[in-house]
C-alpha cells in the first residue's frame, strides 16, 4: 500500500514551522492581567506524506500549535510555511484560498459536527461553501463516505445516529471533501475504545498511503502515536523539549518529560494484568 506514494523526493519539506510563539492574556477587568506563553519558539518540519507527532501532557501547548498551524489563531510571531508559502500572518481573505488544503480533526466529533445535521449536510457543508452544486456535492459525499468505510446509504441519517467512532469517520470524510494536503489530528482518537481507536488509526494510515497526506498528530499518548509517526516532538510548558525520529524518542528518550510520557502510557496493560492476578 505504501508503494502508491511517489517517493522520488523523500525530503521535500511540506510544512515548516519556525520560531512560532503565541501568548494568551488571562484575567483583565477584575483580575490582574497575566500573559501565558502557550507556545514559545516552536520549530519543526514535516516532509510531504510524512507524520510528525507532537506529544505532551495536558496543558503543554500542543493544541495551541495545532490552532496556529491551521490558522484558527494568528500566532504572535514566527513563520508557518506550507508548501513554501508563509501563512502565519495571512489575512482572512488570502487564507480562504489556503484553507481547503489544511484540515483539522478534533478529539470530539460530537462537538465539532452540528447535531441537527444529517450526515450528508455535515459532509457537504464545505462543498456548499465552495459553491458546488447539489449533484456534485452528493457525488463527492458518496465517494468520501466510501473512503472512510461508511455506507453511502447512511448519508441521510442524523449524525446523532452514528456511534463515536463512526462520527469521527464522518469528521474525516468531511475533511477529505476539500482534498487537503495537510491533516492536523488533534487528539483525534483519544477517548475512543481500543478497537475503534485502532480502526481510526488504520484508516488514517491507509489514507496517508493513498493520498500522500502529511499529518501533524497531536496526542498525549506517546506509545499509541509512536507507531504512526515518522518523527516525534515532545512539548512541555509551551516549548519543544525533545525532537527526533520516532525510533530515537521511544528507544532512547533523553528528556525527563519524554520518559514520563513513556512510562505513564505503559502502565495500562500492567494494571489490567494486576487486577486479574490480585484482588
Amino acid at each position, binding site marked *: 500500500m505504501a508503494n502508491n506514494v511517489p517517493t522520488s523526493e523523500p525530503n521535500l519539506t511540506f510544512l515548516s514551522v519556525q520560531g512560532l510563539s503565541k501568548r494568551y492574556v488571562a484575567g483583565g477587568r477584575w483580575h490582574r492581567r497575566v500573559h501565558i506563553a502557550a507556545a514559545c519558539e516552536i520549530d519543526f518540519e514535516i516532509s510531504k506524506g510524512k507524520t510528525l507527532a507532537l506529544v505532551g501532557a495536558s496543558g503543554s501547548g500542543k493544541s495551541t500549535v495545532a490552532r496556529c498551524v491551521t490558522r484558527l489563531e494568528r500566532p504572535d510571531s514566527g513563520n508557518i510555511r506550507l508548501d513554501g508559502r508563509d501563512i502565519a500572518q495571512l489575512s482572512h481573505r488570502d487564507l480562504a484560498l489556503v484553507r481547503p488544503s489544511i484540515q483539522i480533526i478534533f478529539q470530539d466529533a460530537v462537538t465539532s459536527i452540528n447535531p441537527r445535521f444529517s450526515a450528508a449536510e455535515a459532509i457537504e457543508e464545505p462543498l456548499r461553501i465552495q459553491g458546488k452544486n447539489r449533484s456534485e456535492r452528493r457525488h463527492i459525499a458518496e465517494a468520501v463516505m466510501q473512503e472512510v468505510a461508511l455506507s453511502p446509504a447512511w448519508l441521510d441519517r442524523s449524525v446523532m445516529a452514528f456511534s463515536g467512532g463512526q462520527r469521527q469517520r464522518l469528521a474525516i470524510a468531511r475533511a477529505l471533501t476539500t482534498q487537503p494536503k495537510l491533516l492536523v489530528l488533534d487528539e483525534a482518537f483519544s*477517548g475512543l475504545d481500543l478497537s475503534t481507536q485502532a480502526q481510526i488509526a488504520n484508516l488514517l494510515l491507509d489514507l496517508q498511503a493513498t493520498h500522500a497526506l502529511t499529518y501533524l498528530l497531536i496526542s498525549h499518548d506517546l506509545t499509541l502515536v509512536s*507507531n504512526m509517526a515518522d518523527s516525534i516532538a515532545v512539548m512541555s510548558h509551551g516549548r519543544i523539549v525533545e525532537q527526533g525520529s520516532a525510533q530515537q524518542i521511544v528507544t532512547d528518550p533523553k528528556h525527563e518529560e519524554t520518559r514520563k510520557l513513556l512510562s505513564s502510557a505503559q502502565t495500562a496493560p500492567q494494571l489490567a494484568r494486576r487486577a486479574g492476578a490480585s484482588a
Partner: protein
Amino acid sequence: MDRSTDNLLRIQGLDVTYSQPNGERLSALDKVSVDLRPAEVLGILGESGCGKSTLANAILRLLPPHAQIENGQILFQDRDLLQFSRPDLRQIRGRVISIVPQEPALSLNPVMTVGTQIAEVVRAHLPLTSKQRRERVSDLLWEVGFDQPAKIYNVYPHQLSGGQRQRIVIAQAIACEPALLIADEPTSKLDGPLRSEIMDLLSGLRQKHGTAILVISHDLTLMAELADRIAVMYAGRIIEIGARREMFLRPFHPYTQALLQLEQSSRATVPGTKRRFPQIEGELSSGAALPAGCRFEPRCPDRMSTCVAQCPPEVAPEPARSVSCFKYGE
C-alpha cells in the same frame, strides 16, 4: 443464590429504541437485565456504540425525546422508576441516584461560578440555610480534592482544566450523598495522571459513604481498578457478567476474550513502522443491520452454524457468572 431482596438496582428486560427521521426505529438496548447491590461497583464495559450510555441515561429517564423505552423494568429499591411521575423522578435525580455525565464541559453552566452550581444541587434537595449550604459546598470541594475550596468556589468552569471540571461535576453528583452514582466514561477524556486521580476519588467515595457506583467505560484499566463485577455489552446486549478477577483471568465470551487480547497487543507498537494496529475485525453491527442470531457472530472467530439464526441464551459456566454464547451450551 437468591439475591432479589438485597438488590439496590435491578434492571429487567430493558428494550430501548431510537426513532430516525425516516421513521425507522433502531434498537439500542435489547432485553438488558442486570442488578447492582448496595455499595457495589458494577462496571459496564463495551466499545463505542454498544448502548452503554443509553443504559446509563435510561435509569434516570434522561434519554433524548426520540428514544423510547419499549419494554422492561428498572427497579430501584423495589420500585419501578419507569412508573414514576416527573415530580417523583425529580426527587430521585441528584438526591438518591445521580449521574456524572460524560462531558463535564458541556454540563456545566459557563456563566455561573462552580460553587454556585454545586450549591444549586444542594438547595434543590436539602433544607439548609445559605450559610450551611456554603459550608456544605466547601466540604464537597474539599472532598473531591481541592485543597483551597474558598478559592475554587468563585471560579468559572473555563478557568479549570478538564480534570478539575470532572471533579466539580462529581462534587455536584455526590452533594446529597446518593445511594447510587452513575459515572458515564468518567476518565475517557483525561490523560494518565488525571485518570488515576479520578479513579482514586471514585473508589474513595464508595469506601467512605458506601455509594454504589455504576461505571460505564471502554477502559479496561478503569475496570481493573474500580469494578467489583463487570458486565460486558455488545450491540445492545449484555453478553457476559462476572466478578472482576474471574473476568480478567478467564473471559468466556469470544468478544471479551478479543477485548482483553487487544489491550495486550495494541501497546506492543514499533516506533515509526506505520504497522497497522491490531483491531477486532469487522464492525459493531447497529440499528437496521443487526444480525438475527448472536450479534457478535459476524466478527466471531469461533462462530458456529447455530449462531447465525438463533440468539444464544444466558448460561452459567461457573457460579456467579453468566455468558451468552453457544460455546458453553444452550
